[in-house]
């Protein structure tokens, strides 16, 4: 009999409907392409960095390193998308604010001193508070004033970088402390980039939070049916604000990593357009951008896929002028694949195949 075969196509059909389908397919396609074109893409070697530590090096490590910032933002963006049925487009500017504030705290207003005026952890925690306040500001606009999230966050999107510059009187503080550079680089003795550790830590935390609190149920309920959520005793406004505050926390973490990478900041270009990549990560993860149910793991996968794509394009030396076009084509392909009509078509196709096999 052909039981195993139809079982297989049934499995395929089921797979197509899975939320993991899109990000997994994208990942497999990118990996296959690189494997065929140049297997050296996946080579990982051990080198010694300028501080004299043995560290891992190679494209996969680079992807994990630079994709981590996006992954952290994708966590917050997923929650905001779910609860508020919209996206925060101010995260790039907010990263600038958080990064600038952390630098201001560290250098204590003396932009060229290079010495730390307070422990990094204190500066970071203060940065978290600031970023969460800005998140709450966005949240209040969305929750109480019922402004469309994209419109509400447009305010900070426009003003954020100026605020960031204002924190440091428009100067460029430079931190010369070596420990500060560990955050965006490597901790001595550990060969894996620190940003990846931080991202993993964030993922573990959010997994625990989703596991041991009702964050998921509340957020999804508010995102799907606000009326019903309210009549079940929830406070939709509070939950929306909470999602923006959590995104603020993610923003602070990313701000810290970003300013640590080069121990400095450029207000106008730091984390530029990162909000679009973060939103794209959520979409690539198969999450509906109009809110409701979400899958955190696929969003994080989406973030690393975007970085994978970027590295692939760098690797093949796509000309600068054409870079955005290539990215756009890939994005269109991925997003079209995630469109319900296309997925419907694929699952119908699977059914047809199944019918043929049965015949």
């Amino acid at each position: 009999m052909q039981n195993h075969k139809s079982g297989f196509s049934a499995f395929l059909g089921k797979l197509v409907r899975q939320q993991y389908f899109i990000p997994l397919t994208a990942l497999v396609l990118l990996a296959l392409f690189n494997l065929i074109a140049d297997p050296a893409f996946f080579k990982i070697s051990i080198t010694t960095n300028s501080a004299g530590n043995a560290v891992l090096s190679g494209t996969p490590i680079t992807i994990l390193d630079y994709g981590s910032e996006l992954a952290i933002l994708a966590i917050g963006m997923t929650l905001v998308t779910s609860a508020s049925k919209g996206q925060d487009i101010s995260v790039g500017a907010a990263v600038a604010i958080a990064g600038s504030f952390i630098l201001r705290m560290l250098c204590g207003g003396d932009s060229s001193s290079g010495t730390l005026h307070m422990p990094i952890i204190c500066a970071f925690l203060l940065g978290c508070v600031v970023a969460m306040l800005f998140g709450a500001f966005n949240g209040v606009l969305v929750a109480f004033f019922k402004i469309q999230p994209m419109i509400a966050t447009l305010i900070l999107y426009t003003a954020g970088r100026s605020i960031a510059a204002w924190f440091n009187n428009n100067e460029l503080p430079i931190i010369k402390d070596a420990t500060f550079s560990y955050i965006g680089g490597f901790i001595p003795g550990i060969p894996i980039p620190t940003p990846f550790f931080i991202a993993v830590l964030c993922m573990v935390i959010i997994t625990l939070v989703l596991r041991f609190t009702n964050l998921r149920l509340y957020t999804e309920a508010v995102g799907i049916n606000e009326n019903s959520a309210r009549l079940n005793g929830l406070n939709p406004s509070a939950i929306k604000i909470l999602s923006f505050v959590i995104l603020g926390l993610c923003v602070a973490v990313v701000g810290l990593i970003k300013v640590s990478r080069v121990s400095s900041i450029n207000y106008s270009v730091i984390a530029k357009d990162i909000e679009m990549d973060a939103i794209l990560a959520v979409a690539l993860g198969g999450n509906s951008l109009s809110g409701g149910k979400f899958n955190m793991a696929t969003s994080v996968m989406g973030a690393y896929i975007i970085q994978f794509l970027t590295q692939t394009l760098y690797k093949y030396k796509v000309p600068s002028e054409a870079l955005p076009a290539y990215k756009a084509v890939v994005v269109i392909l991925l997003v079209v694949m995630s469109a319900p009509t296309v997925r419907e078509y694929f699952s119908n196709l699977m059914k047809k195949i199944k019918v043929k096999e049965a015949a």
Partner: protein
Amino acid sequence: MKKKLALLLVAGMTMASVIGCGGNSAETTAPAADTTTDEAEAPAADTAADTADTADTADAATDEAEAPAASGELIKVGIINNDPNESSYRTANDADLKATFCEENGYDASFAYSLKNEEQINAAQQFIQDGVDYLLLSAADTSGWDSVLQDAQANGVRVILFDRTIDADPSLYEASIVSDMRAEGDKAVEWMKSQNLDEYNIIHIQGVMGSAAQIGRSDALTETAAAEGWNIVMEQTANWNAEEAQQIVQSVIDSGESFNVIYAENDNMAQGAVAALDSAGITHGVDGDVKIIGFDTNKFALEELLAGNWNYDGQCNPFQSSYINDIIKTLESGGTISEKTIIMDEKGFDAETITQEDVDTYGI
């Protein structure tokens, strides 16, 4: 809980209003005489530092400061610039303009900032309506300015371009004070040539594609590289962004290709590139394997040169105000400008020869 919050809010608002009042009273009580002398001296000192070689410009500025006291009439200028937060170049540029075009120097200046051409054009029209005497313009985009400049001419507003040129008939403006990005690039490439390396394997990190700085600095390298047979290992835009530059260099390191020069079109990108080298343990600078070239003479960049971590940094002079001041002075006294396009003096610094004094004088 709610009450506490309300209390906090009220407290915050009271604070804010107190601060607001404080600011006002400080302004009103500040002795007018003091400010005048302070400010009048400042630009003179600035200009002296900026264009160290021309002593007479410094004089002109000082004259200028005294002139309005006699005539009592302020020259109205409308200044359209890019957002000062865009880069430290722009910050220095804006500060320089603000210091020169102040009331104490005989100017009534209004400023408009935008990175968008349409918004700049709107601002220009507004200035023309307001009846400014001079329109100083650093255009976001090179095209689209003809009609508004014709309006300006029709209304007797004289236009001076600074920092960036535009695609318009030269008769529409009095003068254009610019940096020659191509010359900056040529200077840097000339320096590279003078190093007589055995081979040239270059990572070329470009700015935002299509910007004047990118085009000038890229062309200089591309043409010389073709002529000299230099190998461009990687040519990619990092959009003036340090982290993007870091990723690009990282991707070259990952690919295992060898390189010995990084030509970054601004200091931020050079900084990002160096961060990537550091994490891969590749040496750079005077005694290192990789030569680092940056642009814009940011203070941190010059310090890196001084420390021998980088090799070369090209200046992009942001201090146009003294030049503009000279031109306005000449025009007001009935003189004519012989040369429409004035290219500013720009330097290139070599890590071998840079001094602490250079860092203090030219760092922005």
